[in-house]
């Protein structure tokens, strides 16, 4: 696949593939997946008795496996799938498998640009990660909460460093879990650790920890904050200063702490999924300011638009000045941006997408079983049996629409003005 800027941004639509056509005999075709540039559509196909392959634009990959699953496009457009080759698991990238086989592989991850691909690995009852086909040197009795740094240089997971027998509750309380970075565990154990995350230059990892059965805090490179809390959620690094923020619960209410000190007073019924904007001068989170009502808060100040069912997928615009998220009320979803909801109500919405100039926000939506995309609250005229997330062109003037209708996969580039009128 070519670079994003070099994708075909010429306005128009084309049928890329007829989904019923495949150059090999197939018993069935599983879920379709479109490539980021829209030029490909792929699916796992059953090609024979206990034999599976991957069909891309009507052509099957050469290798066949006993099982193929977890089909994913990396952000750079390479197609990956987990495959079982006579008992050994491998990752297939564009039809080429990793050299090494493993006991089990799952949860494929990509660096932000897609150049690095990683998986979780279990081999001979030990656990860790494989990055671009190379496993960590140290594997552990168990590992979970896996993460690859956005630049792909490092990987980390929560690992079990001490053996634990059946019902050894007292040993458990002494701490048998730690965080391993590239397979090297911190030199300290905790009762629990969750959701490790890297800072921008990957020199630091922060994670939630539990230090006994009821005291929670955040540890950075193994060093816990001095303050403990009744509960914490996922930490996030400031993009520039390396300060760490995390939602914390104090006397039954949630606030936000930075490096252990409260920066948002604990007045909320819930706070989570906080994010800094790209420059780091603003911090937003999903909050529950009043029991049963959900919205976003920016620097601790809640918005006015609230939803009763749920709020998710908070997204910052590239310039960091705008925020959008999904809100659900009475079973119907919508997008809300800049504290205003769209007028459309949907059975499902997918994560909002901003244009590079931050002027537009779009989302894939579903209504009565039909899918389309919506830009700034205006629905695209055509609906699909299935569609994928929209992507704006580098100059923000066009939008790439990928959809399936009548068994055909289409790639469409529309001027934004055409949709928003």
């Amino acid at each position: 696949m070519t670079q994003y800027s070099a994708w075909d941004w010429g306005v128009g639509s084309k049928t890329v593939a007829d989904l019923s056509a495949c150059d090999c005999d197939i018993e069935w075709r599983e879920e379709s997946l479109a490539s980021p540039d829209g030029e490909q559509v792929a699916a796992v196909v059953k090609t024979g008795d206990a034999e599976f392959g991957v069909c891309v634009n009507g052509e099957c990959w050469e290798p066949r496996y006993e099982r193929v699953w977890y089909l994913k496009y990396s952000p750079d457009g390479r197609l990956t799938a987990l495959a079982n080759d006579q008992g050994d698991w491998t990752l297939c990238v564009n039809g080429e498998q990793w050299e090494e086989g493993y006991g089990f592989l799952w949860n494929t991850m990509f660096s932000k640009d897609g150049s690095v691909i990683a998986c979780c690995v279990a081999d001979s009852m030990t656990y860790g990660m494989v990055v671009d086909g190379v496993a960590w040197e140290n594997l552990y009795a168990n590992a979970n909460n896996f993460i690859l740094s956005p630049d792909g240089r490092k990987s980390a997971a929560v690992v079990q460093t001490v053996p634990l027998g059946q019902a050894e509750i007292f040993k458990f309380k002494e701490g048998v879990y730690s965080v391993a970075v590239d397979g090297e565990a911190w030199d300290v154990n905790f009762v629990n650790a969750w959701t490790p995350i890297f800072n921008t230059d990957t020199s630091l990892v922060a994670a939630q920890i539990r230090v006994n059965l009821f005291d929670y805090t955040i540890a950075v490179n193994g060093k816990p904050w001095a303050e403990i809390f009744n509960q914490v959620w996922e930490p996030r690094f400031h993009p520039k200063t390396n300060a760490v923020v995390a939602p914390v619960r104090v006397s039954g209410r949630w606030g936000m702490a930075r490096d252990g000190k409260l920066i948002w007073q604990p007045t909320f019924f819930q706070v989570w999924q906080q994010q800094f904007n790209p420059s780091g001068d603003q911090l937003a989170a999903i909050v529950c300011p009043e029991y049963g009502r959900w919205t976003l808060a920016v620097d601790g100040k809640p918005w006015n638009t609230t939803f009763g069912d749920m709020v998710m997928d908070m997204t910052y615009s590239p310039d960091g000045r705008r925020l959008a998220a999904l809100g659900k009320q009475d079973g119907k979803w919508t997008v809300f941006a800049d504290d205003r909801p769209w007028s459309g109500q949907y059975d499902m919405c997918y994560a909002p997408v901003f244009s590079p100039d931050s002027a537009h926000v779009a989302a894939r939506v579903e209504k009565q079983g039909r899918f389309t995309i919506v830009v700034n609250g205006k629905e695209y005229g055509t609906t699909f049996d299935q569609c994928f997330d929209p992507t704006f062109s580098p100059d923000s003037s066009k939008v790439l629409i990928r959809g399936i209708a009548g068994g055909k996969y289409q790639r469409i580039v529309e001027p934004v003005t055409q949709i928003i009128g």
Partner: protein
Amino acid sequence: MKERVWIQDEGIDRGAEKLTPERIEKTINAVLGNEAGARLKAYVETCAHCGLCAEACHFYMSRDKDPRFSPVGKVKQTIWEMLDKKGKVSVEFMKQAVQVAQTECNLCRRCVQYCPFGIDIAYMMSLVRRIAHKLEITPLYIQDTAHSHSATMNQMWVKDDEWIDALHWQEDEIREELPAARIPLDKEGAEIMYSVIGPEPKFRTQLIYQAAAIMNETGCDWTMPATPGWDNSDMAMYTGDSEMMGRLKRMHFDTAARLRVKKIVMGECGHAFRSVYDTGNRVLGWRMPPVPVIHALEFYWDLLNSGKLKVAKKFEEPVTFHDPCNVVRGRGLHEKAREVVRAFCTNLVEMYPNKEHNYCCAAGGGVINCGPPFKNARVEGNRIKAEQLRATGVKVCIAPCHNCHGGLEDIIHKYKLDIELKFLGEIIYDCMEKPNAV
């Protein structure tokens, strides 16, 4: 009155070694003062000690009406004493209070229906468990389960890969019978996320198989997650660890939200339903589950009434139906369940009392999860259920709840009842039309 037996449990006993009177006092007053508040005060002030709730409790009835096993008797042995003494109670007292609250009450909420003031004894027993959690004197086995939840986000220490592997394996198995069947993993945009409890991938894979058969043969658009978040169970709810309960439920709902499903359908489990539909969502700030949750019983009913699920043959042997507290008192599913049972079974023999007045299996509320040390006492504490079952005269009992299965199994064994237990899904799987079967 029979002598009271105080059972040895490593979790309680070793935990208690570390207690000091100061810590006990401080913890009790903190929990009762900061967390319980007005509701507890109202209960304590309104209770007329009338004892009307006593006969509601299977422990009381099964133990020859020993008042120490009556609902209010349990409060007397725990919360009242703590309040009276303003938290100045002994280590020994606390050990006994744990046994009462954690192993002699199923939090089944049968008694609340008989109290003229609607006093919720289960709530007060939960407070005692909360105190025990903070004092680290929770019974060993259920504490271990809570630890598993915290470390793996499931009840049975199932590792991330083992879960996926179990589903792959069941998919291979099911294709022997239904060649085109799938267990779609992590399918974004499916209508249904099917979630189960920890023991299913470990010991009861046939239930996943049967559920998959039902999903496939009724044409459901469904998925199961390939990540933690698949387990809807929650023993942390029953050890008073509400923080961990919140963490588990967040993971469950986040997973459903990530997969963009319209609803969560959960297997035949009672306590998990309570956690997902009632306590867990609320502790996080949601009045109702953010993604609608449908219990298996209701799901079967929906499938049957929409014509997707068709009866191929009837289960001829007479059956009885055990109402799991958490889905009848907690959700009122007893009639829907019976409609499904009647559709598939020729002869349903009711046990009495039933429906929302049904006696608990004595396993629920985390009691069975306290493990072997408490097994005999638990089974003795539910003679009345054995009598109920025996009186039906049938040889098959449908119990659509995992814990109920465990509890009833023990009762059947101890009281020598010749009864086989079944999940409703098992019967449906056996008797439904399977158009794609070979």
